[in-house]
């Protein structure tokens, strides 16, 4: 049986930049307070156009759980590792705090968590998705307008697979070769 390949598909047309996902993530994952400490974010995009013909988009994001993760390549102690399902995570007790993974990440997805004394980042809420109730990641579940859809790319019947089949999508910084697994519908 094939492994799962977890991914998130985002429809940013729906995003209203309400910050529900960022607060849900912080409370669910014990991210310490402080504006440098976060696992996910909603990008403040610049205003387009000139008054009164203005436009603005909002781009939520987090760790891309790349299939070719530079963070995993550079970690000296193997603290950053990837599960068979594609989730990139940090084994806390192995992290030496050299922050190489932070300079290696093209997405600024990581931060150093003083409370667990290790580098921290989105884990697709592994405690929820592998937990008893099989819940969705907090950011996916809480979103008022359902911007994010979470699922298994290796399952052709999953919502994510169907969305990516039906609609064109893009990823962030494709030229980096990281093969990210956050897909933004165009």
């Amino acid at each position, binding site marked *: 049986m094939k492994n799962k390949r977890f991914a998130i598909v985002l429809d940013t*047309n*729906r995003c*209203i*930049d*309400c*910050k*529900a996902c*960022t*607060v*849900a993530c*912080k*409370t*669910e994952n014990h991210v310490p*307070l*402080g*504006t440098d400490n976060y696992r996910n974010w909603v990008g403040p995009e610049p*205003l387009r156009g*000139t*008054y*009164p013909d*203005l*436009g*603005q*988009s*909002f781009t939520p994001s987090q760790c891309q759980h790349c299939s070719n993760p530079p963070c995993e390549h550079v970690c000296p102690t193997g603290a950053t*590792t990837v*599960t068979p*399902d594609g*989730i990139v*995570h940090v*084994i*806390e*007790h*192995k992290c030496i705090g050299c922050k190489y993974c932070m300079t290696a990440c093209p997405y600024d997805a990581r931060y150093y968590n003083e409370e667990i004394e290790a580098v921290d980042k989105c*884990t697709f809420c*592994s*405690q929820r998705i*592998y*937990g*008893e109730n099989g*819940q969705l990641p*907090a950011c996916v*579940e*809480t*979103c*008022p*307008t*359902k911007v994010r859809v979470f699922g298994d790319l290796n399952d052709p019947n999953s919502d994510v697979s169907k969305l990516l089949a039906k609609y064109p999508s893009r990823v962030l910084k494709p030229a980096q070769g990281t093969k990210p697994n956050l897909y933004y519908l165009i």
Partner: protein
Amino acid sequence: MSRLIDKKLSRRRFLGLSSCTLATAVVGSQVKVLRALATSGDISAPVAGKDDSIFTTCGMCVNKCGVIARVRDGVIRKLDPNPNFIKSRAMLCARGNAGVQLVYDPDRLKYPLIRTGERGEGKFRKATWEEALDLVAKNLNTIADKYTRAGVMFASTEGTYQDHFFNQLAECFGSPNTVRHPTLCLSSNIQGFSATYGTNPTPDVLNADYIIMSGANRSEALITPDSIDMLKGDGGRRKIIYLDPRFTKTAAKADKWFPIKAGTDMAFILAMIHVIVTEGLYDKDYVRDNTVGFDKLLPHVAPYTPEWAQGACEIAADDIRKVAREFAEAAPKAVYYQGRRSSFTSNDTQMRRAMAILNAIVGNWDVKGGMIPNAGIKLTPHDYLAPWYDDVPGRIDADSVAFLSEKDGSWPVVQERVLAAKPYPIKGMMIYKQNVLASVPDRAKTVKMMDQMDFICTIDITMSDAAWYSDVVLPEATYLERLDPIESLGGPVPVAVFRQPAVEAKFESKPCLWIMQELATRLGEEIAETFNFTMDEYIHHQVKDNPKILVDLKEKGVYFERTEPDYGSTVGKKLKTISGKIEIFSQRYADKGLDPLPVYSSPQAIPAGKFRLIVGRHAFFTHGTTANNAYLHEIMPDNTLWLHSAAATQAGLTHGQRVKVRSSVGEETLSLEVTDKIRPDCVYMAHGFGVMSKGLSNIYGKGGCDAALIETKYCPISGNAAMHETLVEVVPA
């Protein structure tokens, strides 16, 4: 030489030995690390420990979304959305998630407090409930003796499901002076639509194909399910037209944004009506059969041409025409979305009347995609016999505006009359949850009003400005620590909600009912009798005729009887208007000497060098109470004054500069944000900053207070405060 070498060798040996020892010591101290070597680090292994899941509803804003509190070892670990809660479409916003902080906030009120210093100094001492409650009762009785029972005013706002206990106490105490939040918000909407339809309906956003919003910033002023439904996929049919002096997040989502001149929405609406009636685009059959006064509408809107409106609201006549035609074409699945807050201008009620009329003539009443009358969940009310008092006068704000709500009053009028002590003095204030110093326009006036009081008591969960300025502060248990009565959330698809405690109430905080019962006991037996029940008994009484409500609430966290609106429930029945029909022409208004059809009046011209101050919302704050919540605070730690780049250049001001904003009633200092997301003739600042209370440690000293700048203006029909009529000047600080 050799001696030195020997010395060096032995030194080396010493160094070697000591560094080995040191290394061993250091490594040994990392026993935790060594032990952890054994851990697999496998994250797909299930996490130890199990949560208790408790159904409740959120208390962070008016929406009251269903929540599942995940509690482990007596600590609320996370608040998750309730997947059964249809009204919220199973979501939980930033504030809902941040609600957990209310319980663990170091700033939360913990004990009853009695003031020791001067009012506003913030010097309190911890007191027992006994002492505090005795003091409150004593003062209330003293004031009652000296000034009659109307000498105490009871200010409250909704949301805890227990505010009606507070108002029950007010009623049983014998004061007619209950003041609630609607005149700071939506009274004009209620008035304008009720005058037309007999009720204030809710637009069926999910099924509407064409939605026009006047300043109802649904992507930031979240209302469930509208904020969600307006974005739901529809195959691209739905169009959203959004009118606002600001480019808000709703403007970013809308199909078309018009930077309408502030306060001129009525011109736009009247011109739309003009187009629709003159071009015969209205639903002729519907109007003939279901409305009265259409014949008077035609001549009335004759002068309100799109060309005229263009001059008034600065939206091109062609655009107005286009929108009007599209609106009529899409009808009846077209709504002019009236929103909630109707505190724009002193003419707001008539503007909402115009909205209601526009909706009526395209025949969207009580049909799919149109304006739906609200239904509710039937609960058995708690009947009590309030004691009768002989000498108590009527409401202090009686005979002030055309249609005053007996229970809600009109805040601007109350503020004025209490200050003037006319027609009689009010010397006591009981405040429940409402942050009057932040919510009521003209903060300096509110301060003066409170200075006149002999006694002020606030019941709250944090040291709001109102609490800061009080004589006695009583800590209420937060919504996550309480068992609350059931409430019906009315709407096209009504739901019933209640709350169960996720954790025990911390410190000495108590639910409102307990506080009211304790006060009632001290105020008199007759009053205490009306409170003679436990919360459990109260709740069971509420569902006496329908026990399934409580069963569903406990098992699913929500009770509802339908998942779709009951379209056409009013067909064949009389509406709650004089004629029983939709009143385009309002005889009721005519009888009161008010314009029976909306007459346009332009907002005050803005002189050079001044700007109109407008207020608004953000999706991560609720009014004046949440900016101090640590999780929400870090999203926006400070407020800024928005100013258009052209206006800034002209005034010689730069982005980030500290500026003073001055109105006729106050002056505030904050940082300037130069942005083109606002009309050049307006300025905007977020609500909830510039606080007086040092007990709000995250935001004290940050930003400016809009309430300190807004002048007292209000609609003479509804008493709704008009918050967009203040002109300010902006100068370097």
